[in-house]
């Protein structure tokens, strides 16, 4: 039979489970572990094992099996956690990930790595369990020790009888009636086979609609569900107990199929010596009593379980595109209808208003599908920081803020690499060694903060360290030796921007963590490619803050439409600070041709859009124009336009799909009348204006300055 079509589901679920496992392991307080977390880690391993078994990924199954046993002992308090044990678990988790990847690519996992991890885990089991269980367990350990480290294939096969042996021993654990609803023949065969692995099948009957299997097993209903759910949906499964209430609860817990091989081979006395904690036995008893009721409540529960849906991204993108088209059509209709009389066509107008509202709601709802919490990015850093700090002999505490801040999926995936780079940099160059920190009067443990927050239409991501900060002198010296044009009079901000120059590194020593000088320029380029920018704030001795500002989404933009001559442009609303009509008294000329506008004690350079973009027929008298104060990449300036047309959400269309990058323009959009309007790139417009300035000065035509300044 063919079950390969379910592989992808398994891989994705297993990947998520591994992610959960890692998160919990990292959060785990070694000295006082939270039983809930231990349970969660155990459950993750257990579900992966179940799935791996179903699909015949024997190596994966065997590795998880061993890990799971260890975890089981841990959650029962039989194994005392230490940092190095958690490290081993993390290593095992990485190994599982590698194995998963191998299976995903249709290959067999590396047998040597498998053997190594099995050995490590088994050794750990022997050492630790031996220690904590005292003499009697020690005997058992001694007995178990001679077992040679297993070869991958035979062990995986050998495991099945071992397991079922354990299960037959637990037949008194109670009989369950597993009902399969609307499961086709193929899957049913597989499921029944799988159930056979979990216990002894007493009876099976029924048809496609409802197929009942009476199973004699000690495995809990939750575990059965976890295994089955790789093949069927939870609502297709009904598990009830048959006379379970009479079954003794403690053995049911004790005789779990998932005990470590080391333990399984031990005399039953070991188990008896470690009585299950009372609180653990109790829920089990409760569970048994509640079992019949559970079948009924299963439906309600499954509602929340299947409340998420996996959809390929391109399908979502297609919907977003279509909604974009719908919005354009809607504004087109709106424009046409606005020519009709409001009184005689009130029904039409009402209908259009409703359409507008619904279309916007639909757009918002669709856009929110693409939004993902920043946690998706941040969650990979605890591990990285932990490993790196250990490697660099530094004490670092990682704090994350604003994990639930949402960002467009396409952006969130592209931010991972730059952010990783910044975090590595902070750890390597920013935060000092504990001794140095102490000497500087700072706590030995450095602090690295990752934060995300919304600011207007942007998302602000910050990497903050309390390390040594950037060294101005060193940066300048380095820049000079690299042949960059620098001077001592440069502002701090300008000096900090130097580190984004290609091939620039101030690290005295190149480490394998960072310092090769390839990177910061790539970081900056990547972020600019996403429509964002990077800023650095640094105080010597106090730390560095790297701030990444990104637009929330690339697909929709809150824009302000402006008019120059006969042309309409869109300004990103996030860049607009205010707009005003300039007063002649507030305009000052500088060096002949440059113009400054005084706005509340601040002098802003004036850039006329019609000059930068060569628009014909624009107003030239500045006092008749509108000035929009805009900010981009930290630069603020006054943009001269003819008129403000209005605010609207626009669907961003890439110009580069069929054309090329246009200076001063970030993208295009389609207006209500079907024509194309260009979206201005505030920062690039400033650069373009400076590039064009020398040419303008040679222009024999009357200068703007001459026209507006009082003679």
């Amino acid at each position, binding site marked *: 039979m063919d079950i390969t079509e379910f592989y992808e589901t398994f891989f994705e679920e297993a990947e998520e489970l591994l992610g959960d496992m890692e998160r919990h392991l990292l959060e785990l307080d070694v000295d006082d572990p939270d039983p809930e977390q231990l349970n969660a880690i155990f459950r993750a391993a257990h579900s992966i094992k179940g799935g791996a078994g179903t699909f015949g990924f024997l190596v994966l199954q065997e590795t998880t099996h061993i890990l799971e046993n260890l975890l089981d002992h841990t959650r029962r308090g039989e194994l005392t956690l230490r940092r190095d044990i958690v490290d081993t678990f993390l290593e095992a988790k990485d190994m599982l990930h590698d194995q998963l990847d191998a299976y995903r690519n249709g290959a067999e996992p590396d047998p040597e790595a498998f053997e190594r991890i099995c050995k490590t885990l088994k050794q750990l089991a022997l050492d630790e369990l031996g220690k904590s269980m005292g003499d009697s367990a020690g005997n058992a350990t001694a007995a178990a020790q001679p077992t040679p480290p297993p070869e991958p294939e035979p062990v995986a096969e050998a495991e099945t009888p071992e397991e079922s042996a354990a299960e037959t021993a637990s037949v008194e654990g109670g009989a369950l009636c597993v009902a399969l609803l609307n499961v086709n023949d193929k899957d049913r065969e597989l499921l029944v086979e799988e159930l056979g692995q979990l216990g002894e099948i007493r009876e099976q009957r029924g048809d496609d609609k409802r197929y009942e299997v009476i199973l004699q097993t000690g495995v809990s209903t939750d575990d059965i569900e976890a295994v089955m759910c790789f093949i069927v949906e939870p609502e297709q499964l009904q598990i009830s107990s048959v006379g379970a209430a009479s079954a003794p609860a403690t053995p049911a817990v004790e005789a779990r199929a998932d005990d470590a091989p080391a333990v399984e081979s031990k005399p039953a006395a070991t188990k008896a010596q470690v009585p299950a904690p009372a609180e653990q036995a109790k829920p089990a008893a409760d569970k048994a009593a509640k079992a019949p009721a559970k079948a009924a409540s299963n439906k309600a529960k499954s509602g929340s379980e299947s409340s998420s849906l996996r959809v390929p991204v391109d399908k979502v993108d297609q919907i977003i595109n279509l909604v974009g088209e719908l919005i354009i059509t809607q504004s087109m209709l709106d424009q046409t209808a606005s020519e009709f009389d409001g009184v005689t066509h009130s029904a039409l107008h009402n209908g259009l208003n409703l359409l507008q509202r619904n279309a916007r709601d639909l757009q918002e709802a669709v856009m929110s599908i693409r939004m993902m919490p920043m946690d998706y990015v941040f969650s990979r850093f605890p591990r990285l920081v932990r490993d790196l700090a250990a490697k660099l002999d530094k004490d670092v505490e990682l704090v994350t803020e604003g994990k639930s801040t949402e960002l467009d999926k396409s952006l969130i995936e592209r931010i991972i690499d730059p952010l990783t780079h910044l975090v590595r940099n902070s750890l390597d160059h920013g935060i000092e060694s504990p001794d140095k920190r102490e000497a500087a009067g700072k706590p030995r443990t450095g602090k690295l903060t990752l934060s995300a927050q919304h600011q207007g239409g942007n998302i602000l991501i910050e990497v903050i360290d309390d390390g040594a900060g950037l060294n101005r002198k060193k940066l300048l010296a380095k820049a000079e030796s690299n042949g960059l044009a620098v001077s001592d009079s440069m502002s701090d901000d300008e000096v900090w921007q130097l580190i984004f120059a290609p091939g620039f590194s101030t690290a005295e020593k190149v480490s394998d963590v960072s310092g090769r000088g390839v990177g910061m320029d790539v970081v900056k380029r990547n972020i600019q490619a996403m429509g964002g920018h990077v800023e650095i704030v640094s105080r010597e001795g106090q730390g560095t803050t790297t701030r990444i500002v990104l637009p929330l989404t690339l697909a929709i933009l809150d824009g302000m439409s402006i008019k120059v001559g006969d042309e309409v442009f869109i300004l990103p609303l996030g860049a607009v600070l205010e707009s005003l009509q300039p007063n002649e008294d507030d305009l000052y000329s500088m060096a002949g041709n440059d113009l400054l506008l005084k706005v509340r004690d601040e002098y802003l350079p004036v850039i006329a859009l019609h000059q930068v973009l060569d628009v014909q027929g624009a107003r030239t008298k500045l006092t008749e124009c509108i000035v929009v104060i805009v900010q981009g990449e930290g630069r603020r300036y006054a943009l001269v336009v003819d008129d403000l047309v209005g605010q609207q959400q626009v669907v961003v*269309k890439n110009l*580069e799909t*069929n054309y*090329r*990058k246009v200076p001063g323009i970030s993208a295009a959009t389609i207006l209500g009348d079907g024509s194309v309007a260009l979206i201005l790139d505030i920062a690039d417009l400033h650069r373009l204006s400076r590039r064009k300035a020398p040419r303008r000065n040679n222009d024999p035509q009357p200068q703007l300055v001459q026209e507006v300044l009082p003679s």
Partner: protein
Amino acid sequence: MTAVSQASNQLQQASAAALDTQSSEFLVFSLGDEEYAVDILKVQEIRGYENVTRIANAPDFIKGVTNLRGVIVPIVDLRIKFHLDKVEYGGQTVVIVVNVAERVVGIVVDGVSDVMTLSPDQIKPAPEFGVALSSDYLSGLGSLDDRMLVLVDIDKLLTSEEMALVDRTAK
């Protein structure tokens, strides 16, 4: 000749053309008094010239961009590119939308006349000359009775550096 026999005659011609895999079909268009042709397989559609948004700081032959059912398409005026004297926009002015190098580009021409099937022996090699239109961008000259068709290699032309349509640094 009756209508039926005429139709069957045409049908025969068409099937003959289909059989002869060597010959290919060209869309003939005019720029001023000259006749040009492009491989019909490159042509996506023909539409009127309207609603083009100018792009600042672009070469003059790039008229701007237009909205083609939600897709932003650049519009190139070949008459300006080929330095024709008369560049007018009227009812006859059409845009041939072509697909080249996975891009969609519109080219402005004075008119589209017909579709021709040319056999290999009707296609002569392009002479080595041309200032406005380098022979690199020609796939040959088609001779049809007393007409001469300039066969434009639209792929090469539109992706060439001098057309400034494709961002080289981005590639």
